[in-house]
């Protein structure tokens, strides 16, 4: 079976650690060679060898990262195709750049579960694992779909929709000229097409700029720190970030607004949200804070629920425990340095023991246990690495770039008097790629547009 070449980040992302980009397919070696600078050319490399060098954008000369590249030729590889793995040192930003660079060539981003699928289809994975393979594909696709849906509500998506609408209007106009040549609609000229395409390119450039600044989406597993006032939530944030970002006082109700920080725990990126302590309050400002805490709670992928070990469990906390029954929760019992009053038996009845961490933030104990608990949840797959979110961001950028280049070709064609039906090929491609960004299927919408925009008939 002929396959194209695919790439994806294959290890969880972390700032300190090494992230690996896996490339698989008939052109894997050539594609990596295109961006790889080393003593010996990669194409001459023997199978199962590791090579030191740099990932370089050979067009601009920009050196992106210092890497170790492993070459595994098919069929002795995970997918039974030629596989190249790039171990990047430089953390999130550079991994992303390396992948971006790869995707400017003939490599495309892998679909969820595609490596596993290829491994299976190429006979590398046992028959008995077929169902497991399917589950991986299903789970990853569903997760990707959820992320896409989430994004579809955002402002990026609104702008892309508008852009697509302008393109589909243009396309409908071109199509009417083709399919109804004798109708009295305005003749489509190359000059007109050119202006429209150029306007679209300008807008894509704007989108790309904001995408690259990371504004499209923040990265990291959304992790909310919640609990009653004064249990030590802000202290936890400060300990994890090793900075004094949040104000810590002995006055309950100190934190009034959501504080956001990024940390990595064992290579797992977390977007930490410190929230106002949840309680009934008559203070208007605090009420707003509590409201925000609840929103953060609803959106979080992972919840760190903090208790004060020196106090008995409060009714509000019982309620929270109930509400969070189906969620990814780690319970932190803080202030173990003080005499304990908290009913541990009750907690262990409600929560798995490995999900409960006892710590004293004041004495900085229990931190390793907390990190271990987070990793365990993460690697068991209960919290999906948001590398899908992240990859979908990379994928967006790649698609936006492709759409831009398609429109560039259309503009060029329009300048050199290429007939409109041929220019349409490129316009349509751009429109489809933009659709992929927001998960809009191609469907019948072009025809719908033709018939609603123009009055046709016999």
């Amino acid at each position: 079976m002929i396959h194209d070449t695919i790439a994806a980040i294959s290890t969880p992302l972390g700032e300190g650690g090494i992230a690996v980009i896996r490339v698989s397919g008939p052109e894997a070696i050539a594609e990596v060679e295109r961006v790889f600078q080393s003593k010996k050319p990669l194409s001459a490399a023997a199978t199962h060898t590791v090579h030191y060098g740099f990932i370089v954008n050979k067009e601009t000369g920009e050196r992106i990262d210092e890497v170790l590249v492993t070459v595994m030729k098919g069929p002795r590889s995970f997918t039974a195709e030629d596989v190249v793995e790039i171990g990047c040192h430089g953390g999130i930003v550079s991994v992303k750049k390396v992948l971006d660079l790869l995707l400017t060539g003939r490599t495309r981003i892998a679909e969820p579960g595609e490596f596993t699928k290829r491994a299976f289809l190429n006979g590398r994975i046992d028959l008995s694992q077929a169902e497991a393979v399917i589950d991986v594909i299903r789970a990853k696709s569903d997760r990707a779909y959820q992320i896409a849906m989430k994004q579809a509500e955002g402002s990026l998506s609104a702008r892309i929709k508008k852009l697509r609408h302008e393109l589909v209007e243009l396309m409908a106009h071109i199509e009417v000229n083709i399919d109804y040549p004798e109708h009295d609609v305005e003749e489509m000229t190359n000059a007109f097409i050119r202006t429209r395409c150029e306007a679209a390119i300008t807008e894509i450039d704007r989108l790309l700029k904001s995408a690259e600044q990371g504004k499209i989406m923040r990265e990291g597993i959304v992790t909310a720190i919640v609990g009653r006032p004064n249990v030590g939530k802000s202290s936890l944030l400060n300990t994890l970030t090793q900075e004094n970002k949040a104000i810590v006082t002995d006055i309950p109700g100190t934190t009034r607004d959501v504080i956001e920080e990024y940390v990595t725990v064992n290579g797992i990126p977390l977007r930490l949200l410190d929230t106002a302590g949840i309680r009934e309050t008559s203070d208007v400002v605090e009420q707003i804070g509590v409201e925000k805490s609840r929103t953060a709670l609803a959106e979080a992928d992972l919840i760190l629920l903090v208790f004060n070990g020196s106090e008995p469990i409060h009714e509000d906390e019982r309620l929270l425990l109930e509400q969070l029954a189906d969620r990814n929760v780690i319970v932190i019992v803080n202030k173990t340095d003080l005499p304990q009053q908290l009913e541990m038996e009750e907690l262990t009845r409600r929560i798995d023991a490995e999900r409960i961490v006892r710590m004293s933030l004041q004495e900085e104990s229990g931190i390793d246990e907390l990190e271990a608990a987070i990793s365990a949840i993460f690697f068991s797959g209960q919290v999906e690495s948001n590398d899908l979110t992240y990859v979908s961001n990379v994928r967006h950028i790649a698609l936006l770039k492709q759409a831009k280049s398609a429109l560039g070709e259309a503009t060029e064609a329009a300048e050199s008097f290429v007939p409109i039906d041929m220019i349409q090929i490129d316009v349509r491609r751009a429109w489809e790629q933009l659709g992929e960004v927001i998960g809009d299927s191609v469907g019948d919408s072009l025809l719908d547009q033709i018939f609603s925009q123009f009055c046709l008939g016999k």
Partner: protein
Amino acid sequence: MGYVAGEYDVIVIGAGHAGCEAALATARMGCNTLLLTINLDMIAFMPCNPSIGGPAKGHVVREVDALGGEMGRHIDKTFIQMRMLNTGKGPAVHALRAQADKFQYQHLMKETIEATDNLTLRQGMVEELIVEDGVCKGVVTKTGAQYMAKAVVLTTGTYLRGKIIMGELMYESGPNNQQPSIKLSESLRQLGLELVRFKTGTPPRVHKDTIDFSKTEIQPGDAEPKFFSYETTEAPKEEQLPCWLTYTSPETHSIINSNLHRAPMFSGAIEGTGPRYCPSIEDKIVRFADKPKHQLFLEPEGRNTSEYYVQGLSTSMPEDVQLSMLRSVPGLEKVEMMRNGYAIEYDAVVPTQLWPTLETKLISGLFTAGQINGTSGYEEAAAQGIMAGINAARKVQGKEPVILERSQAYIGVLIDDLVTKGTAEPYRLLTSRAEYRLLLRHDNADLRLTPLGHEIGLISEERHRKFLEKKERVEQEIERLKQTKVKPEEHVQQMLREAGTVELNNATDLITLLKRPEVSYAHLESISPSPVELTDEMKEQVEIQIKYAGYIEKQLLQVERLRKMEQKRIPDDIVYEDVHGLANEAKSRLAKIRPLSIGQASRVSGVNPADISILLVYLEHYNQVTAAKK
């Protein structure tokens, strides 16, 4: 009162554009064929516009011809006007359109059918299908005649439970006041086929002598007409007739607006879904209220008739309103209306019940083609007709079915759309429905399909030989242009100056020159003529294949990428319910459509890429398991 009246290989019911192609194909492929139709005077009748072709539709006529069908040859002999449309655009969308002498067309088709071996033509109204154990065995007519067959092709157009509607008037009827087919529709429903109600319409016809042509604009045919059929070499001897262009007036619009309460479109009398691309004039005026005027083309219906078709004025308004509408149009102030326009409602088979061979999934041996499948247009009907005929014959003969790919023909696009996606309105082909428009050109229909037509047995040896010769000469000429270099000599520079492009600095091959937008094949010929004689069609082929090579390759690459998906077959006995991990919606949609390939499955609505991945893994598993069992 029933009696056994005969036994055939194939029975075709309805001699419209689909039925004629179907019956001719089966007979020519060696099947003893019976063609039954309600009225022998209505064979290949054009109940609506007197024209054939146009964008996408003209392409289809070329394809039918390339496969060995008849529509192209017949319109070439009976046209009264021929125009090549879209000549200012790319070669892929050039489209031939003919005005037909609709009466002559009919007569000629009847003659062809009567003269064909293996083909029996008989008048009769089929009222019932004979089906045993899910297999279609024959038909029963109104007179009690039972005809038995191994395959039956239903091509009944808009006759099924047809109903004409005009203003307050409504009556059961086929098109043009023909007898409708009421009982057959019931029979199909009882057999378990799902039917939908569609609607279409036609404008009034007027008397030529009452038109003031001086107030209209003349629309002549091409001085040098091109033809649909690759076999036609000569035009009919008679002069071409022009059409005439006029427009609705503000008065037309106000007449319509003040009579909307009498329009069945808006009074609720019409239940069927009409096509968006072919709205009635009242619909257009309501939906596009700000458009001050609409084009109307006056088209002769034939040489020996005074009837003119008023294209653009399809309507189901009451007769008196139709007349005042007509008379409000410049040039038609004193017009006599000879036939009124009307809307017609009819039953159609939901086409997702068909295999891509056009055989019904429910009843083996029963094929449906044409307007009964929810399409509109003579060309779309003819295309389905020939394919249903080919597949019926091949089934009878125990051969593999023939299914055209979307990248191979508009016919492939048409049938795949119908059986995979279905249609919510009468389906019309448009070039924008084809994703590989540049490959499905008007000029290369023979290259795409004639070898297949020959293999099937519908293209004669003689024609095939000519085709191969054309192909070879084109290839040789392209090779020669690749090999031949010209130096910057004066006669070359002069040609380039004349073409309006820059002069040469170095020796250059002819292919590179031809790729310049300003340079045509004719220019090259003036400096380096081909050593062997080439026809105009061959030269055109050379030019297109070279000039647009870049774009063509892009599309070929796309096709290549998807090919493996198209070729990956899905076994007949797959139980989607058992496919672990498939989304529920995908399960139910796939179980209904039962796609033959992964490619087809991916086009079923509600099936997403993850479902396709899962299906691929499942199939691999399935194949390994079945292989292990053996």
